[in-house]
């Protein structure tokens, strides 16, 4: 059951041009930094990226945008990124915007084998255009489909050789529901330990959802909005 690969380069083996990738993280919090760096290095192009956000200029998915590796972004919020805006307005980049809760649930549904479900989010808005709507118990809902991808790439705090994962603080975000939504799910972790070292009661994501795991070389963990109060 050893799922350990040497590094990010090995983890993304088989990830080719024009594939669809699901990537975890919220803003720059809990993003798979090492895998993104490996994607830049590899130079794969024409990617469809499903990720809540699109990084910032010079970090996160912004690095892939810079190299024109992304054909389409599927996200809930894509501000904070001048290069993104430039590519979008020039028509180089396609964007599909999805309500955040719907995005999370569609990824979870992909991992959980639920092809479609109903949510009230977006009813009677342009998000529901062309979608089936239906009334349940006097309220209107929109039918949404699962999201699946060739690869899902997520980031956790600790992981073991069986692929079991533990997250820290608000980094669970999309990383958890995305685990298992790719044909191959890659997890990069800050600390990789032998199977048996993690308390089975404290595992957030069971290893069955993860196919490849590696310890990232370094994590910059850039902060997007540093807000503090004086000492």
């Amino acid at each position, binding site marked *: 059951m050893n799922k350990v690969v040497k590094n990010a380069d090995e983890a993304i083996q088989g990830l080719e041009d024009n594939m669809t990738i699901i990537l975890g993280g*919220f803003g720059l919090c809990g993003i798979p930094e090492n895998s993104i760096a490996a994607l830049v290095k590899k130079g794969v192009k024409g990617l469809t990226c499903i990720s809540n956000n699109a990084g910032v200029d010079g970090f996160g998915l912004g690095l892939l945008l810079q190299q024109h590796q992304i054909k389409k972004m599927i*996200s809930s919020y894509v501000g904070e990124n001048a290069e993104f805006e430039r590519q979008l307005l020039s028509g180089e980049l396609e964007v599909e*915007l999805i309500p955040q809760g719907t995005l*999370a649930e569609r990824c979870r549904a992909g991992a959980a084998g639920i092809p479609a479900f109903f949510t009230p*989010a*977006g009813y009677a808005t342009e998000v529901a255009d062309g979608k089936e709507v239906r009334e349940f118990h006097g309220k209107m809902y929109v039918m949404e489909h699962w999201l699946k991808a060739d690869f899902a790439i997520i980031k956790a705090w600790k992981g073991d050789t069986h692929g079991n994962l533990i997250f820290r603080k608000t980094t669970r975000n*999309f990383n958890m529901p995305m685990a298992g939504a790719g044909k191959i799910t890659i997890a990069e972790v800050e600390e990789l330990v032998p199977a048996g070292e993690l308390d089975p009661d404290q595992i957030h994501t069971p290893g069955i959802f993860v196919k490849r795991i590696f310890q990232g070389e370094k994590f910059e963990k850039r902060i997007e909005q540093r807000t503090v109060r004086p000492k």
Partner: protein
Amino acid sequence: MLDKNGIAKRIAQELKDGYYVNLGIGIPTLVANYIPEGMDITFQSENGMLGMGPFPVEGEEDADLINAGKQTVTILEGGSYFDSATSFAMIRGEHVDLTVLGAMEVSETGDIANWKIPGKMVKGMGGAMDLVASAKNIIVAMQHVNKAGESKLLPKCSLPLTGVGCVKRIVTELAVFDVTENGFKLIERAPGVSVEEIQKATEGKLIVDGEIPEMKI
């Protein structure tokens, strides 16, 4: 007339002991500064936290602990972390008692537009569509008119909608309104603001029923 903090203070009067509350970016965030004494309120941040606390003390910020506005924050005793699917399960399942958010326009039937201006770069709806479609109680905190001086309380929204028939109450610098079957019902006037001034700034149908009290801030 209220300033931003005044609007937040007035909204804070809507809180009830034990409420779980989700605050949007902008004026809504300020509501957290005016929780009535002795009241136990828990703030949910839709990126995956209950019990959101103040910004961290300088030097203690943690890249792994942010709020939905991507700001570094802290967690209070009794708080918890969870993933985005669980977070929106809380929201969609109506476990969050109150959502306060900003708006560009609100219609007299409770529709809200706050995510997109045609012709401008669209950044996305984030969690706003889930929040407005799901919350039991939605209060809009906003300026009464836009930068061009046009009313934001309209018969019908002109901008692309975020949600329909969902706004329950609106607090602006001029007044408090309930959204009713018949239109915007004026509940309270801001200090020093007359019904006529409110009427003038409100394009949607306004219901003025009897004497309208001045709000107590």
